C-alpha cells in the first residue's frame, strides 16, 4: 500500500510542478488562473498523502534523490505546448479517477476519507479537462498529442485497471510506459525543484 500511496503522492507533486510551469504563459490569463488552482490542489493532495506516510511531508517531498521518486513517467515530461499540456491533463484525470475510486473503497478509513476529499476537488479538474477536450478534439495537433501520451497514461495505473482506462478514453490498449524508470526530464525538474532547499543544511526553517 505504501508504494501505491507514494506513487500517488509523487504523481500529484510532480504534475503539480508541471502545471505550475504555465504560470504567466498560458494562452489566456483565465487559464493561467485555472492551472494555478489545479496545481495548488495537486500539491495539497500530495501533501495530504505524504502526511499519511510520515510526520515530515516536506522532507519526504523534497529531500529524496531523483531515483527514489515513485512517480509515473507521464507526469515528468516537460510539455510546454498547450496541445500536450491539455492532453496530459485529460488523460491523467481519467487515470486518476480510476485510481481514486478504488482508494475510496479502502478498508483503512483514513485512506478512504482522504480519497473521497481528493475526489471532490478532482471533479472540477475533470470538468476543466473535459471542457478543453471538447473544444480541441478536432485539432490534429491535439489528437496527435493524446496518441503520443497514451502509452504513458496507461503506465499511471497498475495493469488490472488499464482496461477501464481504455474504455473510458475510447482508445485501444497498447504497451504502457511503466513506472519504475525515470525520464531525462525528471533530473532537470528535480534540480530546480530542490535547489533552494539544498542550499541550506537539512532541517533549516523556510
Amino acid at each position, binding site marked *: 500500500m505504501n508504494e501505491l500511496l507514494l506513487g500517488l503522492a509523487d504523481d500529484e507533486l510532480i504534475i503539480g510542478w508541471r502545471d505550475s510551469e504555465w504560470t504567466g504563459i498560458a494562452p489566456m490569463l*483565465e487559464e493561467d488562473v*485555472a492551472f494555478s488552482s489545479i496545481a495548488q490542489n495537486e500539491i495539497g493532495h500530495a501533501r495530504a498523502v505524504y502526511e499519511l506516510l510520515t510526520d515530515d511531508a516536506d522532507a519526504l517531498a523534497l529531500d529524496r534523490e531523483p531515483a527514489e521518486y515513485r512517480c509515473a513517467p507521464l507526469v515528468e515530461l516537460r510539455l510546454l505546448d498547450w496541445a500536450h499540456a491539455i492532453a496530459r491533463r485529460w488523460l491523467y484525470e481519467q487515470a486518476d479517477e480510476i485510481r481514486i475510486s478504488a482508494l475510496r473503497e479502502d478498508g483503512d478509513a483514513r485512506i478512504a476519507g482522504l480519497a473521497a476529499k481528493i475526489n471532490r476537488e478532482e471533479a472540477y479538474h475533470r470538468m476543466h479537462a473535459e471542457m478543453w477536450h471538447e473544444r480541441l478534439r478536432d485539432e490534429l495537433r491535439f489528437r496527435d498529442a493524446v496518441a503520443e501520451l497514451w502509452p504513458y497514461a496507461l503506465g499511471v495505473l497498475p495493469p488490472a485497471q488499464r482496461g477501464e482506462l481504455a474504455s473510458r478514453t475510447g482508445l485501444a490498449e497498447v504497451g504502457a510506459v511503466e513506472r519504475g524508470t525515470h525520464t531525462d526530464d525528471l533530473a532537470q525538474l528535480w534540480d530546480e525543484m530542490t535547489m533552494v532547499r539544498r542550499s541550506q543544511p537539512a532541517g533549516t526553517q523556510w
Partner: protein
Amino acid sequence: MSGEPVWEVFRQERKGQPFEHAGSIVAPDAEFAEAWAREQYGRRGESAALWLVPRSMVHVVDTWADEFDLKYRRVDGYSIKARLKEARERTAARAG
C-alpha cells in the same frame, strides 16, 4: 479575446444576501464562462452563488424624467419637526 461575448457576473456573498454585480468575463460559451467565473469570483470560497448573464441580455435603464416635484411620495419630502414641537408645547400648556 475580441469577438467573444462578454458575460456579466453577479455574486451572492452568503445565502439570503442580494446578488450584486461583481464584474465581467469574456468567454466563448457558458461552460468556459462558468469555469472562469468560478476561478475569479469563487476560488477563495467567497461566493455562495454566481449568476452569469450575457451582456447582450442586460437591458439598461439609466435615464429618468424628473420634471415635477414628486417629493410628497418620499420620506425626505416631509419636515414635521416644527409642527411636532408646537403640538407638544400646546399639550404641555393644557396639562399645566
